[in-house]
């Protein structure tokens, strides 16, 4: 889809909804960029002080960083437009609308509703809205009977599907532990126990190595727990149903697996599908490829030759600014991508 023809229509609508334009810097300090899918394709360069910069790979991230530098603590509706630069996609044009310092679900609904209207403005095709919520995944992992470091591994790698399933399969089969290797390592372990605990080996003390080794050997998941947990995660990620049924189906799933997670009827910002020519469904595996979001996530797709084409992405990113070391900003937003 060509941005030039469609953007005036979209911007006119977004402006009408009270969103004000934020002009974005084309360059971003590389340290702010997280996640495999952005990092892999960056155009980077260093300034004469050795600080690494990149051409902006994503406008939503840029907009959050720029907004965090203002002192505005009131709710603010902004929109942005322009190009993002990634090696794999050359130039990707984006228009996005975001609500900063947003505290309630009505903002989630506003962003979702605007996304649906924008979709309808650019095409007559049937829209497929998929809604998920990363909080559910995080809570589920948190309640599984696996060591904390495994919980962290799963949560940190959910964005990279291929690697995530590789980790899940290791959790399932316990491939991380090789009995033969443990025997050899144990011999070294006993030898190391006799060393000065403060002795440094390649920048690490003997004490910290032994402590972590002991923790791994004794607390690493054994097959039954790992297998069971991996099975629950896989089943959860397969849940897909109409948005009306989602609270009931999810509650039943959590009850069945003895997980203390309650889903209220009004958990999702859209409870009933009142939009014409739109299919709205809950989908646990709705996970964007950009590591920004921490709560609600959604995408709007259309069908082309039996394939879903994602055109609008969005969600809530309340943790993002603090994780980047910026002032905390609760935010929800969405963006349309044109190639």
């Amino acid at each position, binding site marked *: 889809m060509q941005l030039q023809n469609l953007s005036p229509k979209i911007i006119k609508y977004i402006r009408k909804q009270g969103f004000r334009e934020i002009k974005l810097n084309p360059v971003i300090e590389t340290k702010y960029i997280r996640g495999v899918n952005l990092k*892999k394709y960056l155009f980077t360069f260093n300034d004469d002080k050795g600080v690494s910069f990149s051409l902006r790979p994503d406008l939503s991230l840029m907009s959050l960083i720029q907004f965090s530098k203002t002192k505005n603590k009131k709710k603010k509706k902004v929109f942005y437009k322009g190009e993002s630069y990634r090696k794999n996609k050359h130039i990707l044009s984006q228009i996005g609308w975001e609500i900063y310092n947003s505290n309630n679900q009505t903002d989630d609904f506003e962003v979702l509703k605007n996304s649906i209207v924008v979709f309808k403005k650019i095409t007559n095709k049937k829209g497929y809205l998929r809604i998920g919520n990363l909080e559910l995944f995080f809570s589920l992992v948190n309640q599984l009977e696996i060591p904390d470091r495994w919980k962290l591994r799963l949560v940190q790698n959910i964005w990279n599907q291929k690697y995530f399933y590789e980790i899940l399969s290791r959790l399932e089969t316990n491939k*991380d532990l090789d009995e033969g290797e443990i025997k050899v390592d144990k011999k070294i372990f006993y030898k190391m126990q006799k060393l000065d605990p403060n002795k440094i080996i*390649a*920048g690490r003390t003997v004490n910290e*190595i032994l402590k972590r080794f002991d923790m791994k050997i004794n607390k690493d998941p054994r097959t039954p727990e790992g297998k069971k947990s991996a099975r629950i995660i896989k089943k959860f990620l397969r849940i897909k149903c109409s948005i009306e049924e989602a609270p009931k189906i999810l509650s039943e799933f959590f009850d069945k697996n003895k997980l203390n997670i309650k889903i209220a009827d009004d958990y999702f910002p859209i409870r009933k599908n009142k939009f014409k020519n739109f299919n709205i469904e809950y989908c646990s595996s709705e996970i964007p490829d950009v590591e920004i979001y921490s709560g609600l996530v959604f995408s709007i797709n259309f069908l082309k030759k039996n394939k879903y084409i994602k055109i609008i992405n969005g969600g809530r990113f309340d943790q993002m600014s603090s994780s980047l070391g910026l002032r905390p900003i609760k935010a929800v937003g969405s963006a349309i991508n044109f190639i």
Partner: protein
Amino acid sequence: MMNNQFTIILPSKGRLREKSINIFKKKKLKILSDKGERDLVGYINLKKINTTVRILFLHARESIQALTNGTADICVSGIDLLKDSDLNIQKKIKVHKSLNFGHADLYICCPIHFLDCQTMLDVSEIASDFIKYKKQPLKIGTKYKRLVEKFLIEKNVKNVEIVESKGATEAMPRLSQVQLIGEIVSSGKTLFSNDLRPLKKDGLILKSSAACMVAKKSLKKKGIKKILSLF
């Protein structure tokens, strides 16, 4: 005729040099040189196609560079070195044939005393501990900066700094310059004698071997196919 001038670069040292020279020996072709065995320039007379091929002996890394700046048409070098070179360089080179020698794997390796470090997930966690408790990134020494960097991104390993090595990478952890290294492993003897081991489970970055490479520009030259058929 200009079309019939060809330059082939072969590795200047070690087993790679010997095995590359053997390719020609098997075809009963002798590399001639004016100044004896240590001469870095030689030539082969290809009477069948009425051509003299110039042979240069260079470091395997330099030979890839030489293909792109027009110094040579063909080279024998490592796949690892090609993959680690600049994208602009890679675009200008075609791998004609993988050769059955110089097999080596690029691995993330750690000291044998790092008992708790067996997978890349461990590396990721140790790196998080480093930044949390020591306020510094985990350091990885390597000659293959680009490949290691890409691999670490794919494995979602954050809080690491890559320290470029110019040689003797295996010594870096013993000197506490780095915690881990990204290095080529063939028999594993060098690693073992330096108290290091590869992360066999998921630390493999690249499987490599020697290969015959050709500059894409040279593919247009008349007679190149006959020269390439020697490999």
